[in-house]
């Protein structure tokens, strides 16, 4: 009994710690301005105001920004999958280049973003990609590429090559093997990297901010910046905008969680 009580106490503590900052944002977004910096902090008993949501929506022009985020996140994820699925398969199945290339790909993510963004800016300018969805899509695809390839590599290593081999003996052509045998096996890992890629792209700030200049392509995460005004951070509208911005990802996480638990082990654990 005491043990179980202790366990639930731990659970409450854990969930509380995870949720509190987000709940606090919700709290701030519903509080009238004069309570935003009250001492002692007001937790529950205040008359909620809903004015911050429309204010935030309007002054940051959130509608188009959300749409941009959706386009960029989906676009970069599709691009990343097209590139990293075959690559990871090649690495896992054939040990192409004995891991050197794989390590090189992983290492691209270590380059400080601030250093990458300048050359990107210069090339994108040449190709007219600045302030376009495509520009941000490419940049996000770049930094998701290494992560996705690496994660997929782990998954693909778990697939028994003999399945493929015996299908070959049965006379199936390579494209058929892929369509009938490999793809069904790839579904869960692809779901995992899709989730992560969408999430990283949605949350990215620096590239999205530098490579865009107007609401035509700016993502919602970069848009929150403007609630930092000359007279201070507007806590109410800022929190409202931040919540609107992260809400799709919060909902999405339910989906993510299902797959992540299913086995984000990078193929490093024997079953």
């Amino acid at each position, binding site marked *: 009994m005491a043990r179980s009580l202790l*366990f639930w106490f731990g*659970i409450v503590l*854990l*969930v509380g*710690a*995870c949720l*509190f*900052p*987000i709940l*606090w*944002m919700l709290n*701030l977004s519903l509080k009238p301005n004069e309570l935003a*910096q*009250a*001492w002692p*902090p007001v937790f529950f008993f205040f008359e909620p105001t809903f004015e911050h949501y429309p204010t935030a929506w309007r002054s940051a022009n959130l509608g188009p920004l959300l749409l941009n985020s959706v386009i960029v996140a989906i676009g970069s994820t599709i691009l990343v999958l097209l590139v990293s699925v*075959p690559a990871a398969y*090649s690495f896992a*199945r*054939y*040990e*192409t280049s004995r891991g050197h290339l794989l*390590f090189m790909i992983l*290492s*691209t*993510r*270590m*380059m*400080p*973003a*601030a*250093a*990458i963004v*300048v*050359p*990107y800016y210069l*090339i994108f300018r040449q190709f007219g990609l600045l302030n376009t969805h495509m520009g941000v899509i490419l940049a996000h*695809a770049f930094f998701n*590429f290494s992560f996705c*390839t690496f994660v997929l590599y782990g998954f693909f*290593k778990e697939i028994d*090559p003999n399945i493929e081999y015996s299908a*070959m*003996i049965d006379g199936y*052509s390579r494209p058929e093997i892929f369509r009938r045998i490999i793809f069904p096996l790839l579904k869960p890992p692809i779901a995992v990297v899709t989730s992560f890629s969408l999430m990283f792209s949605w*949350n990215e*700030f620096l590239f999205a901010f530098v490579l865009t200049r107007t609401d035509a392509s700016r993502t919602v*995460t970069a848009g*929150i910046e403007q609630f930092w005004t000359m007279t201070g951070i507007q*806590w109410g509208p*800022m929190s409202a905008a931040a919540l609107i*911005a*992260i809400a799709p990802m919060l909902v999405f996480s339910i989906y*993510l*969680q299902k797959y*992540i638990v299913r086995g*984000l082990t*990078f193929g*490093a*654990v024997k079953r």
Partner: protein
Amino acid sequence: MQARSSYPSVAPGAAAPARPRGRLSRMIENDATFKWLLLVPALLFMLALVVYPTVFAVVTSFQKYILPRPASFVGLDNWRWVLNDVSFWSAFATTLKFVVIAVVIEIVLGTLIALFLNREFRGQTFIRGLCILPLVAAPFATSLAWRHLYNSDYGVINYLFQLVGLPRVEFLADSSIALFSVIAIDVWQWTPLVIFVVFAALRGLPKEPFEAAKIDGASAWFTFRRLTLPMIKPVLLIVAMLRMVEAFRVYDILYGTTRGGPGTSTETINWLIFREGFQYFDLGRATAMSVLVLLIVLVLTNLLFQQLIKAIRES
């Protein structure tokens, strides 16, 4: 279980129904060419988005290139400057401190919580689902919430401290604490990743050795030390490496909280490079710094990567 390219590349016997016989399809059917064919998109992608910026960075690091003026080669000037620059090395030290402390805490805490959650209880999926939220919320947005929580005049954390009789803490204003406050945000955000990865690994462990250990009356600590830990070690190494790579790039949470201060006590390398590149537009120095950082990080991760390969081979 390892895939080898030595498998026969053309299936013997039974002719496949209506197999096309073009040059491309021959390349597809041949393992030696197929494995590279699969890499074509990735290589093109790398060429455009990875190789070019890297080459650009390396070349620029030998130039005096201050926008909007044209670039001119100056040999090792930038490198000499970076190596002698006090702020570079202090930012590097800060980053290293940040990475080591954050990643160690995340791994230890994440593993402990994963062990704690690794049992059946009511509403388990729901509760685990809640724990993933810090990971998916945009760090820039949440860092602003943390800025509010940390405030010493109206922040909730100081309020809670006061309730239990602790003194007021200047989380972001005290230079001996600020870095740890930022680390705490990083820990809050990324520990869920560790939890879930380790949790997934724990769920995948074979049952028999643990049952045997239980029958032998082994203590929980012994079981963990001798059974669980070795088995999940490769996963821990991988997640540590991923976290290390990410932590080196920390930027968003600084933007929302300390912005490198007080003084320069939380100025990380990414922040410094951004300043050099985007405030001074001195691309020569900024790229010299980035290339140097890249080299150092490559060496560090390579060591970890070797460990990882070894651990996977051993398991």
